[in-house]
């Protein structure tokens, strides 16, 4: 079964490969038990594909991943990645991988100067789809270029094949609307503050067949998002169909005098969506 390792690739290519992957899955292994599929160790090949021969230190505490042991709703599984205060200096990148998903690399973050360089716990929370029992991994690259990994096992089933919107006709009315909120910290001098981004987008994963036409609904999902504070990059993320519909991010960034954020998201149709924090009390 073909798997999609790169995120934000060519639209048509991703869509086609996804459809093929699904066709194969349904035809050959449609009835395979998720529990059985989860036993297969895909990590060695996956790791090579994403990180080449680079060394990865596992479980050294530089990165912590929080996920529910069992996903109550496999289409919306909140995942939080934390870098403890003891880790000083900037973070270069953070990669979120779901081993057993059709598109294992859910999100690849690269951080800029406005992300801050410590002074507290740095966090990134998002929501993912999990297709079957799977390891979920976070790999962080620190400023010295070393890779550190934390993993957790999540019991979930059907998150990718789930029809994305529960209310299928109500979903498209405000496509691309972005809500950005920056939360004031309790102490004005705290080095880090928190913000939240919500994007109204179905993130259609190309795994659903249209019952009338019998064709797969083409994939359409947010592939990149860039978050800036003024001229400075907070982070940029490349994402795949493993991110839940209505992509959601909660994260820390450097707390300064001007904390307003600008967000630009682009989906696989090359449509650009913009959002920003609202000025409060002005």
């Amino acid at each position, binding site marked *: 079964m073909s798997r999609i390792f790169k995120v934000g690739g060519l639209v048509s290519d991703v869509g086609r490969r996804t459809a093929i992957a699904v066709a194969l899955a*349904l035809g050959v292994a*449609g*009835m395979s*038990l*998720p*529990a059985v599929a989860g036993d297969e160790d895909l990590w060695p090949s996956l790791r090579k594909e994403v990180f080449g021969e680079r060394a990865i230190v596992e479980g050294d505490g530089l990165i912590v991943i*929080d996920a*529910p042991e*069992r*996903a*109550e*709703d*496999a*289409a*919306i599984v*909140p995942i*939080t990645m934390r870098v403890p205060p003891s880790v000083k200096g900037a973070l270069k990148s953070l990669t979120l991988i779901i081993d057993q998903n059709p598109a294992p690399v859910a999100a690849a973050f690269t951080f800029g100067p406005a992300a801050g360089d410590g002074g507290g716990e740095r966090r990134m*929370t998002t*929501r993912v789809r999990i297709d079957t*029992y799977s390891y979920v991994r976070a790999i962080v690259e620190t400023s010295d270029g070393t890779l550190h990994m934390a993993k957790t096992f999540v*019991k*979930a*089933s*059907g*998150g990718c*094949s*789930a*029809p994305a919107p*529960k*209310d*299928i*006709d*109500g979903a498209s009315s405000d496509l691309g609307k972005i*809500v950005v*909120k920056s*939360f004031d910290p309790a102490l004005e001098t705290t080095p880090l503050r928190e913000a*939240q981004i*919500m994007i*109204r987008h179905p993130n259609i994963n190309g795994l*659903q*067949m249209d*019952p*009338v036409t019998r064709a797969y609904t083409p994939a359409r999902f947010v592939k990149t998002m860039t978050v800036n504070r003024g001229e400075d990059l907070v982070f940029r993320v490349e994402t795949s169909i493993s991110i839940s519909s*209505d992509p959601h991010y*909660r994260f820390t960034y450097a707390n300064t005098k001007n904390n307003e954020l600008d967000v630009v998201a682009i989906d696989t149709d090359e449509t650009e969506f913009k959002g920003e924090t609202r000025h409060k009390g002005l």
Partner: protein
Amino acid sequence: MEKLADRSRLEGKGAGRRKALAPDAELLSREIEAAHSLSRRTFLAATFALAAPVLRYVPARAGAPSALSVSEVAPGVFVHQGLYEEQSPQNRGDIANASFIVGKDAVAVIDTSGSFKVGRELHAAIRGVTDRPIKYVINTHMHPDHVLGNAAFKADRPDYVGHHKLQRALAMRADSYLQSNKLMLGDEAFEGSEIVLPTVLVEDKLSLDLGGRSLVCEPQKTAHTDNDLIITDTATDTLFLGDLLFSVHIPTIDGSIKGWLSLLDELATRKAARVVPGHGPPAMEFPGALDAERKYLSTVASDVRKLIADNKTMSEAAKTAALSERADWKLFDTFHVRNVTTAFAELEWD
């Protein structure tokens, strides 16, 4: 209840969870066994007496599928009560209410339970009551525990009736529903189950004539799901709400909590002699039967709204919202967190 394939929880069949439910299941199965001992004559006598509001009937024909126990909740209106459980090989998917209405000319079925085999026993229960043709099989919504018995009625060549969005909803989920229900029920109990799509789609309001009585079908806006259908038996003023009404079994949200709450407000202004819930007793008083569910859903909505206003996260909400409702519902631990997650994802956009 809905056991969504797309979010089936294989873990949910753990022994501990089952054990907690065992006493009820045992009690119910004893009741069913007792019903088996009712003779056909007892049944006929009860029917003619018309005094007994509730009776159970199971014919004992060798070789034929045994019949589900049913209660006659109003003249000619029969309801089989499903168990308050998740699908399992033991309950064979018999976890949702299934009903039939007998007219002078024809019979209509409302929901067919959660497997072909239980559907066949529903069929046998109908044949224990009447030989009139089964003209309509109506599904109140898409969930497998209400539709997987549809296949047991194919030989009757009925019209399969559903909300105009039911066809698309079921077709989209067919593979995952079948796959997960096969896992939960096991091969033996699942055998023969298939997705039978509706042949009559209700766009507006549709009246089905059974001879001397008619059923009025009304499609609803997104609430429990995006394809909920309400049916009224005009002869007895009996309202069938499908999973728009849960009793005892915790409600499950697979559509819109806002839509569901506003529909409940609207429904509460209606009049009906009784209501048949999708999960719960065979018949309940209306509109009082709506109260507990409204309280649960509005508590979830208001707690989640409060948490969102306080900038809390979905994970935090899953740990705290509406726990005050825990003692009031069966299967709370199985479905509540998912309800909160679904409600949070909807309400955070307000």
